[in-house]
């Protein structure tokens, strides 16, 4: 992760942005572009225009992300490689029971179980690191979080393949029901956290953010074992749309960021209660840093949530006949959005900082959770992804 300082120094030496790209930056771009080309050429037949556009856009985004965040250059090939390896050993569903790698590591259920074990372990490691101030333990936390995020992502990618093994007409991207999006939530929140952990060079917030991810994992396990929600279902007609591929992930960047902001709010309140020269203050970032980070994360979430809601609206126009139907899910998305718009306004125009804003961020997570889960449980509508 390049800090702004280094980036600026770099920038001061070379004028144009392309001159500022290092050899490894170029290498990264070439690798991603080559992978995308291979996919495009090999799978030209089954892909339509939208698939191609989404693949190209994803590759460009990945290149930019890798330039901006070096760790991605290791993470993506590892996850991609593991997933491809799994796919190669996976000619039919029965292989999940006979192949060693699939059964214990890479079949979607195995990978998701690994993820479910690793996130709580990472939480614990961060917690121990924070309390004992052992840097090593916190670093273990970081390693575990990366592994958990990777396992979750591999799980999703392999599940995508598995859905096609169920039948060519059943295959679809695994963001179509509550079970699948919970995995997505854990993965995206984990990634957002890891990004800011590197940017702010502190592992002290790991235990806070990972707690909310672990809670999501707890729900996921309950949903899996009590409700058998892990079965792959064919897509109902309403969801058979390329919009789903972009609408849902964009939404979850928003949800993930809001969840992280709430946990930063908790950290803020903890830090606020502690005396300035006490043990807590020594362990946590300063209030100003927490405040700035909270703003950044909410801004990130708000931007993506805005785009996601707009994408949802465009999709609704196509599937339901109107860009806005006041369906409960839509309406709650609007409420979430208005809530954070209010937060940003008070901060920017009234310069409000501090405890009130931290509490607001925490309550915001409540509103967001209701939009995400509560609507499905309590309200009926066109959006209910499956009842609990």
């Amino acid at each position, binding site marked *: 992760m390049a800090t702004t300082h280094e980036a600026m120094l770099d920038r001061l030496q070379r004028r144009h942005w392309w001159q500022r790209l290092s050899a490894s930056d170029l290498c990264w771009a070439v690798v991603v572009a080559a992978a995308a080309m291979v996919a495009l050429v090999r799978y030209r037949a089954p892909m339509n225009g939208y698939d191609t556009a989404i693949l190209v856009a994803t590759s460009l985004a990945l290149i930019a992300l890798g330039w901006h965040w070096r760790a991605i250059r290791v993470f993506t090939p590892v996850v991609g490689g593991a997933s491809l390896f799994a796919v190669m050993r996976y000619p039919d569903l029965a292989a999940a029971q006979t192949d060693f790698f699939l059964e214990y590591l890479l079949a979607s259920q195995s990978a998701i179980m690994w993820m479910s074990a690793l996130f709580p372990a990472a939480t614990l490691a961060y917690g121990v690191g924070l309390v004992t101030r052992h840097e090593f333990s916190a670093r273990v936390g970081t390693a575990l979080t990366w592994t958990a995020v990777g396992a979750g992502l591999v799980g999703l990618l392999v599940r995508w393949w598995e859905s096609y093994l169920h039948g060519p007409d059943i295959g679809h991207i695994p963001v179509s029901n509550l079970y699948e999006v919970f995995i997505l939530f854990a993965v995206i929140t984990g990634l957002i956290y890891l990004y800011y952990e590197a940017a702010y060079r502190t592992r002290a917030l790991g235990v806070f953010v990972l707690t909310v991810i672990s809670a999501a994992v707890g729900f996921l396990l309950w949903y899996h074992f009590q409700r058998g929600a892990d079965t792959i279902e064919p897509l109902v007609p*309403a969801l058979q749309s390329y919009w789903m591929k972009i609408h849902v992930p964009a939404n979850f960047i928003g949800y993930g960021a809001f969840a992280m902001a709430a946990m930063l709010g908790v950290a803020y309140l903890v830090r606020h209660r502690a005396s300035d020269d006490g043990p807590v203050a020594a362990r946590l970032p300063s209030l100003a840093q927490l405040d700035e980070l909270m703003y*950044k994360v909410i801004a990130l979430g708000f931007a993506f949530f805005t785009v996601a809601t707009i994408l949802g609206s*465009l999709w609704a126009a196509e599937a339901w*006949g109107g860009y806005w139907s006041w369906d409960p899910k839509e309406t*709650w998305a609007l409420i979430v959005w208005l809530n954070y718009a209010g937060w940003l306004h008070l901060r920017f125009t009234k310069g409000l900082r501090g405890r009130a804003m931290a509490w607001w961020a925490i309550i915001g997570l409540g509103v967001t959770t209701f939009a995400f889960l509560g609507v499905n449980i309590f309200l009926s509508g066109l959006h209910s992804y499956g009842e609990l």
Partner: protein
Amino acid sequence: MSADEAERDGRRKRRRRSMLRIILEFLGSMRLAITLLVVLAVASVIGTVLQQNEPYADYRIEFGGFWFEVFRVLGLYNVYSASWFLAILVFLVVSTLVCVSRHIPSVWREMTRYRDHLRISSLTALRNHRRWQVDVSASAASSAISNVLTRAGYRQRTGDRGETRVTAAMKGRANRLGYVMTHLAIVIIGVGALIDANLGVKWRTHLGDLEVVTANRSMSQMPPDSRLPSGTSSFRGTVYIAEGQSAGGVFLPVRDGHVLQDLPFEIALQDFRISHYDSGQPKSFESDLVIRDEALDDPLKRTISVNDPLHYRGYAIYQADFNDGGSRLDMRLWPLSGPSDATIIEGRVGEQIEVTVNGTQRTIELIDFSLFNVRPERGGDGAPSNDPRDVDQRGEFRNVGPSFKYKLRQPSGEAREFHNYLTPLRLDGASYYLSGVRTSPGEPFRYLRIPADREGSPALFMALLDRLNQSAQVRNAAQETARQLLKQYQGEGAETLVKRVAGTAEGMIKRLRRGGFSAVEQHLASQFDSDAIDDQRRETLVRFSRTVLQRTLMQLYRDSLISERDVASAALKLAQRDRRFFADALEAISGLAAYEEPFWLQLKTFEHIQASGLQITRSPGKDIVYAGFGLLSGGVFVMFYVPHRRMWALVIPGSDSTEVVLAGVSNRHPGAFGGEFSAVAEALERELRAAANETNGGPGVDGNDA
């Protein structure tokens, strides 16, 4: 005009202007904006908690007369089209517009002015600043500054203030544009949404020159006062078109009813198809449409499906729903209450048929037919919804074949609804005709299980029932049973005893038919409830009565079997499944007491005709809204990710050295800007040092930090 008058006039104008200013200030104030955001959010919550756009009768039942009225007046049943809700939206749009317009001049100033008038004292008061004493000429220092800032991407302006050379620079001006873009986007989206909110129809219904029809009417039955001509207005409505039929209009929901919107073309439905996955879940809903329009040389043919609408002349036609389009049903009417022959009746879904069975009059209203009934295997009665937009259809499924729904309406107007399947369903190892009944649409169906005989027909059960309904048959069977039970009492008085026992059996069967086994049990309990009888004897009497009833029923069943199989009484052997049938039949007969209708309809054959539910919209505001969406997305990112940064550099020539001051601010992320600033400062220092080396070959830079 006298001076006096002129003064008064001027004062009035001033007052008016200040009044206007106060209003504008209020409209553009942050307090109002936040209040409106909160109110809008709360109002939206109400709309999601209270189910919207249900029939008003349902609300009345749910809330009772008083609250029903209160909520109706508040518009809570259609929150999102209530006038107060629209008023909030309008307020928000106006407020945002006022806010943007008020800020535009200052935004423009922020974007274009370099603020080169700042004094050295205000610069050194900034958190990010550095100063140096350098051994270079003022012009060399200036060119170093210009170099560094240019490379850092800052635009600059340089001027002289006395001896001092001032460079003011900035970067990320677009940030301020982001504010204008997002807020203008809100206004644009709001305007587009209001265009699409169909205010014209609301206004006309408010005035009362548009009649809202609450009853179910066909298009041709709609009165002229309830029709809207095709034109420029926006709307969103639905229409059901049966296969082979066409429509030239669409129903718009208004409050608790609807009006008819004419279309400038005809839509004909050729075919509607549902395809299924192997597991039985629906895979696609498709309609083959033909558009006939005078503007077209040839009719336009298109197939639409969920997620793939047809856009035509500014109208969008979506696959939204489906139902029955008037399927033809042949049904067999089995009388339940008295002796009569089964008759065949014929009708179409949507039709009403008057029948009189054994003197009881009923109107059959055929409501619905469905070809597939994909029921969840695990629990639940789970009639899946018809709405293809429904996302909630999971689990294991099984297709149990066609079914139909009808209502039986009594002359008094009361009606019950029935749901019968074409083929018997296998449940717990035996086959049954399921017949659901309910008294109001909100209830779930309670299913009666009529056992199917060996041929898979209800005939045997109906034959048994027929015998039960004929008192002569019942009497014979009861006497036969009584005689067998009382074999040991030979001789005098025996025949009287037989008659008495048979009489109680007949009475019990009447009770069974009227109230089921529970009524029989109640009767037995009360009949022997006398002090003259001790417990043991009572027990014996009750048991004896039950035996009499059971055996009489068995006798009737045997009689039915004998006539069905055409065998001699002695040759009749009851197999295990015959006994099971008997038990099921008794269960069903007992259940029939609650059925309370004179007949049961069995579906024999059908011709399936479907109707496709099309949602048709016209939203002229859509492009405006989409433009707003684009502006909003762009604006949000610009606002968050392009911070507006300013830097200032002063070059103050001294007697033996030159002083250089660098300072900067950013309107976002002070922490991140600190890094950027120190990098620029370092680069500048390096550059100054190089310049100093060139001029006099020695270190010539003294810096000090903030």
